[in-house]
């Protein structure tokens, strides 16, 4: 019986993007449990469209769309991430040790993305499920048009938080610069705080002493001419 390799190491300095993704796909096929990406140098599209279990470690910063359109993948980025890390992730777990640029976890559907640092604009935009945890701050339009899922932001958020969200929950530990249209802050029961705290601490992030719970207030679900003041911003 052929033994399964323990890990595959890919050096981005000597490998083209096509070859990198092909090597990851081959590792998946060969049931190799772990892939190590060395010298990623913030290159784009490292590890996309993977739909089988594998663990990927990025030894540095990644560019746009790392780990996007994936399912069942677990990964750790030992650096910062560019735009849209984990976009449309179906299931799995991505941990980013540093910060992320815009659109982190855009259209996330399942699994968890945990960012230990801060995140740029539009984190969790159009989320359709899953969990996005941000240890630091999150930028403008975070959670825009969120549909489902849970977002936990331990620091502050920019303007238009959760704007036009249909559903889902956003927990904010710090200050909210401005709530988005169609959102409201509701009470957070202690048991729910404990659950959120647990989730955050799972990733080695210190939980703030309290969270604000932001949800959709339902007022943008169906047009109401009596509330033109709100709809003027939307239609």
């Amino acid at each position: 019986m052929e033994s399964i390799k323990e890990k595959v190491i890919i050096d981005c300095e000597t490998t083209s993007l096509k070859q990198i993704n092909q090597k990851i796909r081959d590792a998946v096929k060969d049931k190799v449990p772990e892939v190590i990406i060395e010298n990623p140098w913030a290159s784009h599209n490292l590890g996309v469209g993977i739909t089988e279990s594998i663990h990927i470690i990025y030894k540095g910063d990644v560019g746009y769309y790392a780990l996007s359109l994936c399912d069942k993948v677990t990964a750790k980025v030992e650096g910062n991430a560019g735009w849209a890390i984990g976009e449309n992730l179906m299931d799995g777990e991505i941990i980013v040790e540093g910060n992320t640029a815009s659109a982190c976890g855009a259209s996330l559907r399942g699994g968890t993305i945990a960012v230990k640092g801060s995140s740029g604009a539009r984190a969790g935009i159009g989320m359709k499920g899953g969990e996005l945890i941000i240890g630091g701050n999150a930028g403008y339009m975070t959670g825009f048009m969120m549909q489902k899922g849970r977002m936990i932001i331990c620091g502050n958020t920019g303007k238009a938080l959760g704007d036009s969200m249909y559903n889902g929950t956003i927990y904010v530990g710090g200050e909210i610069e401005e709530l988005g249209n169609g959102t409201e802050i509701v009470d957070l029961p202690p048991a729910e705080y404990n659950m959120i705290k647990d989730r955050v601490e799972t990733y080695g992030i210190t939980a703030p002493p309290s969270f604000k719970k932001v949800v959709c207030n339902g007022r943008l679900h169906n047009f109401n001419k009596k509330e033109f003041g709100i709809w003027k911003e939307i239609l």
Partner: protein
Amino acid sequence: MERDIIRKSKVWSPEKIEEIQEKSDLGRYRIRGQATKRADLPSFDDLVFTPAGLSRVPLEGYRERCDTEVIIGEGKVKRPLVLDTPIMVAGMSFGAINAHAKEALGIAATRTGISTCTGDGGMHPVEREASEKLVYQLLPSRYGLNPYDLQKADAIEIVVSQGAKPGTGGTLLGQKVSEEVAHMRDLPPGVDQRSPCRHPDWMGPDDLGVKMEQIREATNYEVPVMIKIGAGRVYDDTKLAAKVGADAIVIDGMEGGTAASPEIQLDHTGIPTVAAVVEAAEALHEIGLKKEIKLIIGGGISNGADAAKAIALGADVVYIGSAMLIALNCNKSLYLEDYKALGTEPAACHHCHTGKCPVGIATQDTDLMARLDPFEAADRVENYINSITMEMQIFARSCGKSKVNALDPTDLRSLTLTSSLITGVPIVGMGHHKPHYADYESSSVEQNVLSQLLV
């Protein structure tokens, strides 16, 4: 004295009065399905073909081949999209139309060797099953998007905007967001769905270039990637879409249809299809990529004349949406009471947004859906596609072309000055510079004749 003539105002026409009164009730702009109803747009009808005569020999209709095949992504991807005829079914979402309509379109497209398209809202299994060639749309909303369906597609279409309403996102009113539609889109049932107009994860053309690479990597360079843009700043947009490496560019003209859009936008935004094709073709010519990148034109294409003229002006393929629905039975004179209940009648219906489509196409209501038998409807669509193909071939053969795609602007003349200005195609009667006019001036004999005539 009693007046016996009632003069209706041209300024305050019945349509304008009705519009104001409806808005004064709704408290918002009007939303409706279908396309603009403007009658004053330049169209393909303003052009005619100049068939062969002595100067060029026509092809024998009964004997000689006239090819219709078009290949998208040839030499660039592992599985190029081969179309047996230069027609594609335009994107219409599951949600806007139902599974019966999707199935019928898929069966008809498969039989005629063309593609269907998922539209917004994900890939319905019935549609995948019925369609041999299925284009998967990637839209700003990302409804129903998943890597498995992406990898099952025969081409990917990144939608920047649509012709009916360029610059805004989709709309699906709550009455059409059934349990199944809501489930596929991860929305609360019954919600007025408003899709974003910008993609969540890219903003401008440079980002889109990286996005293209992502899609190619995720699909392992297997299938073509196309970019669809509503006709607005066509010339620049086409060049940018080419720059980011699209295998085909879809330009959707202002006559494009919709399931639900603000009516004011349907009528007042975008570029008519006939103008859009010219601008797009010019842009591709200018950067030397006209042959390499396929140009697909949609928006109000209804017959083989529209399609062949679009191709002569530079398109490789036409996208047909609304007319496919009409072939399915849209606006057919059936179930008259139900049209009446919607406040309309056959041939005037644009009530897709209500979810109460009388003929069972643009509805998720199971009783209404039962009115659309997918197999009978597929026969009608198949016949329609075949008829357009034959019509295109008539024009190509009569112009002496052995391929529909060999039609070019010299096969056309404009009927109006406007059309000539827009398309650059000479107006009828102006095909040449009439050098013989000079003869009249110089020839004393003819001067003589002229002066005699004047007497």
